[in-house]
């Protein structure tokens, strides 16, 4: 489920949200990443690339 995750991110101040009326007159909620969110993302991405690197190494070992 997407929305609970968004709400959790929001409560951790990693993203912000605001309501805006679309052209059709319906209100939509928009989400935007914050600076803190970008930092967190960078950190997680770098952690992920470490994991990925490790898995790649393992895969290489196996196929050798």
């Amino acid at each position, binding site marked *: *489920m997407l929305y609970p995750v968004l*709400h959790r991110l929001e*409560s951790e*101040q990693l993203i912000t949200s605001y309501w805006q009326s679309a052209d059709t007159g*319906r*209100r939509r909620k928009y989400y935007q990443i914050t600076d803190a969110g970008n930092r*967190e993302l960078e950190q997680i991405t770098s952690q992920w690339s470490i994991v990925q690197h490790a898995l790649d190494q393992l895969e290489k070992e196996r196929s050798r």
Partner: protein
Amino acid sequence: MSRQKEMSSSFDLECQIRKWKSHLQSQESIGPEDLEELESHVRDSVEELMNKGLSIEESFLIAVRRLGEVEIINEEFAKVSTEDVWRQLFIPAATVSDAKRNKLELIIVLALAVFGGLLSRIPMLFGYVDLDAHALVYVRNAALFAFFPVILYVFWKRSLTLIKSLVAFAVCLVFAIVINAYPSYEPHHTQILGAIHMPIIMLYLLMYFFGSSYPSGWRHPNTRLNFVRFIGEGFIFTVLIGLGGMVLIGLTVGTFELMEIDIAMFVQNWMAPCGLFGIFPIAAYLVEQKKNLIESIAPVLSRIFTPLFFFVLLALIGGFFIPFTAVWENRSTLIWFDIILVLALALTLYSMGAKDSQKESRATVWDMMTLALLLAAIVVDAIALTGIVIRLSRFGFTANKSAALGENIILLANLILLAIGYIRYGRKKGTFGHIVAMQMYFLEIYALWATIVVVLFPIIFSFA
């Protein structure tokens, strides 16, 4: 969306969406705003699918299906939801390690409660056994006894690094030494002032521990506003548990009295202080466990008391001007003025924390009520300040009067800044975020002033 397609179909989208919505609505964890968001998502999906050539009925079924089972949606929302107040005090742990941590947390909190109680017994080791005779020792350390266990709890809860917190712990220690090592002579005014101002310093330190784990840092206004909420909720829990404790003590004393066993000493030396200082970590724990239990009460409380306080302030102004009373003749009047002003400010903070600035982007009638309260408070503060200045010119600078002068000037500045913020907000020249940011940075000044009163005042006024 072509009208033709809609007309030709016997399928009523609105009716179906309404049905689906009411099913969602019956779930306890999905609030009205969540509902609106989900509905908006479904409508978008329906439109998108219809553009791909699907019929309206197919589109709706697929869109709803993709969103997931209603029960599962509810479950997911329950994990983050703010709406389900009564459902669970202890949110079931998702994993085994979480469950272990929950259990550990409970043990730590109970240990800290006992620790807080024992902390308040330390003066006994130094021979200050009689509470009445050595009340000052207990009074000046009360803030430390109350807040130190809470600081330790937040420190553990937020998994802060020791190195980072070491400075803050050191500050705690320095203050503990300062308030206890300073000599104090009759009439002990500087020491009592110090005791009154210590909670502000401890709150500020607690704010550091509380906010350190937030990604935006402890200085960020939103983090600080969260801390204000935390304190507001903690206060309510403290009062509730305290009331229960008083009943318990009353029953204990009464029952033993009937049995003709005198337990007054036990109650006075152990039961009451251990109970009192044990409350604070428990209250902090409850707020952390159930962040939103009070959130639904806070707006109600602030809305009940904002108008009432406004009328009290009006009455005070009236009482001052109509039979022109020289407030400065009476010292106690000034003290009561100040207490009411501080409460008015606390109330403003409360309504600030209770306001959902996302839902209400425009100023409401309640914001205007707060503004009225602030303006009345400014007038009252100006009266009090005049009284203090006149007393100062008549009796000279003493510790008490200097402290009162400083407080009233800071309070007046704060109230005026708040009023300006609310006026700008009301005229759409500023946002509510501006007011919050100003107020949250202003907390710095209170901490600074409290430090001056605790550390420098005794030296300036030769420990009297």
